[in-house]
Every structure is written in C-alpha cells, then in structure tokens.
C-alpha cells in the first residue's frame, strides 16, 4: 500500500465537495486527508487528497474523479517534486514540573507557542503529515488536552502551476 497525494481542480460551486466525498465513500476509497479551498482564480476550488492504496486503485480514483462533471483537472503530486504541509494546533496540560521539557521539545519541532497559561499551552506546528504524527507521539507522555489539524495542502515545486499543466 502506498500513500498518494492528488490535487484536484474543481468548479467553485456549491455542493462540489459533497459530490467528491460522496463518490469516495461509496467506492470505499481509503482517504486519510482531504482539504478544500479557493484558489488564485475564482472559478476553481482546489481539493488536496491523501489516499492510501495500490497503484490500480489510485488509477481508479483518478478516473472516477474525472467522471464528475465538476472536476476540471486531476494531478498526482510526487513527494519529491512537491511541498506538502499541514498545520496542527495541539493543546497540552502543563504543570510547572514539565513546562521546560515540553517547551524544549516544541523548539525541536519548530513549534510556535500561540497561547500560554498557568496550566496549559497551545502549540502550532506546521510540517508534513507524518512529522505531525511524530510530534503527537512524542507528546503522548504529557497530557494532551486537544488536537486540531487542517489536513494536508500541497503545491508542486518550481514556477509551473497546475493550471498551466491543465491547459497544455
């Protein structure tokens, strides 16, 4: 099983996300992350999908996406040629005794303290999804109060854009 990152340009219209996720659900695609946002042009929204499966299933996922009339372009992004990041907020309970250790670990992961009280701290971490998993694992020895993650977003390296590739 592999993890694939797929970028999908869709018509920026009401209900499109529902159509896409409904298709994933009924065809039982194993989606580990999905994000959607507006793009540099108002006509399109961009969906980033992280999908776990075999090569043949990935092909199937792409073909099925193309059957939705709202889907304009699908592109698989290779890990090497793209930048993939996710943002996480993690809230930890902090007693005086562990405070310094936690903040040291936070620095190690380039985490930013975005809120801090006597009893708690919220860290903001931006990294690829697997690194975020590592942060969580690392923090398990302390008391994690809440976690919230955005899901992965991804752009290809270099100056070419997905719209240029679409229009080729």
């Amino acid at each position: 099983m592999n993890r694939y990152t797929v970028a999908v340009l869709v018509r920026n219209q009401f209900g499109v996300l529902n159509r896409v996720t409904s298709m994933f659900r009924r065809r039982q695609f194993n989606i580990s992350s999905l994000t959607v946002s507006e793009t540099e042009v108002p006509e399109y929204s961009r969906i980033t999908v992280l999908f776990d499966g075999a090569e043949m299933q990935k092909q199937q996922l792409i073909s099925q996406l193309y059957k939705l009339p709202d889907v304009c372009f699908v592109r698989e992004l290779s890990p090497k040629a793209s930048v993939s990041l996710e943002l996480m907020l993690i809230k930890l309970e902090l007693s005086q005794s562990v405070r310094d250790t936690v903040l040291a670990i936070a620095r190690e992961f380039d985490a930013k303290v975005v809120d801090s009280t006597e009893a708690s701290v919220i860290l903001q971490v931006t990294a690829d999804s697997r690194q975020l998993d590592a942060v969580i694992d690392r923090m398990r020895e302390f008391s994690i109060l809440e976690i919230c993650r955005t899901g992965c977003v991804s752009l290809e390296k270099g100056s070419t854009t997905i719209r240029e590739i679409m229009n080729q």
Partner: protein
Amino acid sequence: MKLSGADIIVKTLIEQGCDVVFGYPGGQILDVYDSLYRFSGEIRHILSAHEQGAAHAADGYARATGRVGVVIATSGPGATNLVTGIATAYLDSVPMVAITGNVMTSQIGYDSFQEIDITGITLPITKHNYFVGSVEELADTIREAFQLAMSGRPGPVLIDVPKDIQKALCEYTPQEAVCPLEKRTAKDVRIQAAADCINASKRPFIYFGGGVIASDARQEMLELAETIDAPMGCSMMGLSVVPTNHPRFLGMQGMHGHYASSTAMHNADCIIALGVRFNDRVIGDKEKFAVNANIIHIDIDGSELSKTVMEAHSLRGDLKLTLQKLLPFVEEKNRSDWQADIERFKQEGALYADSRQGVTPKNVLSLLNGYLQDNTPIVTDVGQHQMWAAQYLRFKNSRRFISSGGLGTMGFGIGAAIGAAVATGEKTVLVTGDGSFAMTLQELATAVSCRLPLVILIMNNGVLGMVRQWQTLFFDKRYSNSVLDKKTDNVALIRAFGAEGEKVSDLEALQKALDNAFRAEGPYLIDCAISQDEFVLPMLPPGGTVDDIIVKAGDEA
C-alpha cells in the same frame, strides 16, 4: 420575450427535439403541467400510473431510440418514486433527463410539506444533477443536462426546480439542440500496440457490450471480426447488436451465458473487449478469469479500464472512432485451428441443448420467435424468464432487446415496454414473470389508455423462479418465500383494465393466443403456465470458473 420558468422548461425540451415526455403531476410541478397543457400541440405527455412506471418508460424510450428519455415528477414522493427508475437507467448507461419540482426556494431546508432532498438522494445514481437556483440559469441547465446525458458514457441527469423558479419570468431565446461533447480516441501508438497484440494472437475473441450500441460501432466491430477471423460473444447489454444467427456470434457471456461463448472466451489468448464491462457476473472467480489471455479493452469510460481485471492494453475512447483507427493496423488472417476449436465448443454446447417436448421455456419462446419482425422491440422483466428470453429469442436489429441488466429491476418491464412502444410505434413484446409483473402492473392502465400495441407474455411458473433456482442449488431446497401461491386471475385482471387476454397451458393454445395477440390493436395478455421446476442453464455459479459451469439439471449434486 419573457417566459415563466415552467414555460422555459417546456420550450427548452421542445427546442432539444423532445417530442414526448412521461410523468405524473403534483403540487410543486403544476406550473410545468400547465405549460404542457398549453404546448400540447408540440410535445406529448404520457401520464403513467406511478412515477416509477414513467421513469422506466422514459428509459425504454431512450433504449429503443438512442434519444434522451424525459420524465417529469412532482416533489417529495413523486421524486422518490423515480429513484428505482433512475438507478436502473444509471446502471445500464441510458441517456435520460428527470425533471422534478420542489418547494419554493424560501421553504427549502425546513422539512416543508413534500420537500425532499432529491439531488442528495440521486447523487450516486445520476451522472450529475442540478438544483436550479435561479430562472436565468434554467434553460442552459436543461441544455447542459441533455448534453451530459448523451455524451461519453450516457446516463441519467436530474434537474430539481423549486416552484418559485417555475413561476419567475425570464428572457428566453431558443437555441439549437445540443450535440454530444467532442468524442475522443486513444493515442495512435497505443492503438498500434493493441493491434500488434491482436496480430500476434492465435485465438482472439471479441467480447462486446452495450457500448457498441451507444457508439453505433456494429459495422466496425463486424469488420474487425472478419479481418482477424474471430468469434464474438456479448454481455446481456450487447444482445441484439449482432443478429443471433450471425455465423461468428457465439452468444451471451455471463452467469447464464451460452456454453460455446463462455468456453471460447476462456480459451482465448487475446480478449478484445469492446464497450463492455468485466462485471462479476461475467468473470466469476477474478483470480482464475482468462489467465492465459491478453486483454485489450476499449471503452469511453476510463474508470472501466483495468477496474476488475488486469489489462494488457487499455484504450480509452469512442468505440466507433477507435475501431476505425485500429482497423488499418490489424492483419487479415485465417485462424483455422481456432475455428476448429470453436466448432468443437459449439458441438459440445449443442449436446447440452434442451430437446424436451411440451411447454418448456425454450419451446414457448421458439413459438414466439415465429411472430417477431426484424424491428419488434422485446422487453423483459427480471428473473428466469429474462434469461430464457436472452438465450432463446432471436434478435435481428440493435436496440430491440430491452432489459434491466446492471440493476436487475423487477417491475421494469411494463413501463419500459410502454416507452419502447411509444418510441417506435411497433408492436412491442413484453416477456415477464408472474412476480415481476405483479410489481408494476398498474401501468396496464397507461398501456390501455394509450392503446399501445403490447403483447404481454407472462411465463407463469407460480414462483419467484430465479430465487427458487438458487434455493434449489444453494439452500437445500428450502423454498423460503419464493412460492407465490397467488390467486390472481390475470385474464380477469387485464379485462378489468379494459383489454383482452387469455390463459394457456399447452403449445397449441399458446399458438392461437399469439395469433390473437399479434392481431389485437391494444395490449393483449397471455398468461402461459410453465413448470415451477425449470432451470436456467447453463449456470456459472457465483465466483466460479468455466470448469464449474452447470450444464444440465442434476449436475450440481
């Protein structure tokens, strides 16, 4: 000129060349029905007895003509009654547009009376659907829906129109009828590679389906078969593309496919699949299916390529255009060794042929064959009778075998037969079962009011025969709820609806009844008694291989 949304709907349908719609009125679609009343000189509306019947009729109309079938229903229960009909069309790739009314935009989302989220409900069973948010986008939405329904792999599209949009006024300018979106073919290099594979093969087999009808590729396919000296077999959806008696045609594939056809495909070293799916009903055991064959698959729907089986060459494109490009690359060859094998398969198959006398399914349908014209639409319901019709009836022209393949919808028959009869004006034959017929027989009222020339043949075994067959084979003859034991008098029934019919239990009487039926002007029903213990054979058990085919009763033991 400013028109109301309702008038725009009807005018746009007319503009798109739609001459007949099927449907059923109700509160949230009244404006459209008022327009249909006023434009009745330009477009005909056929009132069904139930929205499901109207949907199947639109489907039957589309299958018989290749044009987009249109069905109209009101909100809430009207819309939900369409669901089975839309799903049936979706699974068999039938071009259809369904238009539903809905409550006023301002009442959407409040669980208002007869409000239903029909775009949500039909999301997985339509190619696409629309909730129309403003009257300005209405005409273009309908045009786009027609285009989507007919383009690529055809399918149903639904348009949900709130009542206030039907009432709102907007400028309307008629436009030309839309054409299918641009057709594509696979790249030349890939076509060349596929041709090389065919040229190198010793035992090529052509396996085709409904895509040949949709893309009108029959001529090209036959030319390919001649050039490479290959036998052909089809999925149920491909029946009627090639005349049943065509010398290269070995018959249907699948769970109840013809012996020679299944055996030939299994022994082929190159399977050329044209506009057809590798459905579980056809491949049986995935791991053991055609292990020695290179599969070449041409289909307009990229998602069907390499979906269930590994393919050597997957070509995405319009079948007709792709075959036209492929043909110059394939070498003309005689494959006499292969033909000798095929002859042997045919002879083996013939050994298993049913040669019994009396009211057997084969004899009943052979009698019916004598009455069929080249263009007679033959419609079926779902069950044993459907498989017998597929196996024993003789087809001559495309689009003349109309049957629910992908969804297997019991109750499809009468609605679809109405649609096919309306579309073609031909005497139309419905082969149905006692179970299926009882599901939607209220449409007899529609057939009688429209004086449609339907010959309805019920192969009455008193049981849900297909269910019973499985119970015999796989459930130790525990016939749980498959014995109908109905006291229904079908002849009295059709009389109550205002038409004629008769009950028969031997072949002589059947012949006379068929004489009467084919002479009658309106619907005519023949209730033909057959044994409850008949089997559909051969049978490839689910998940089995050709070696597991049950060819005669008792084999399974």
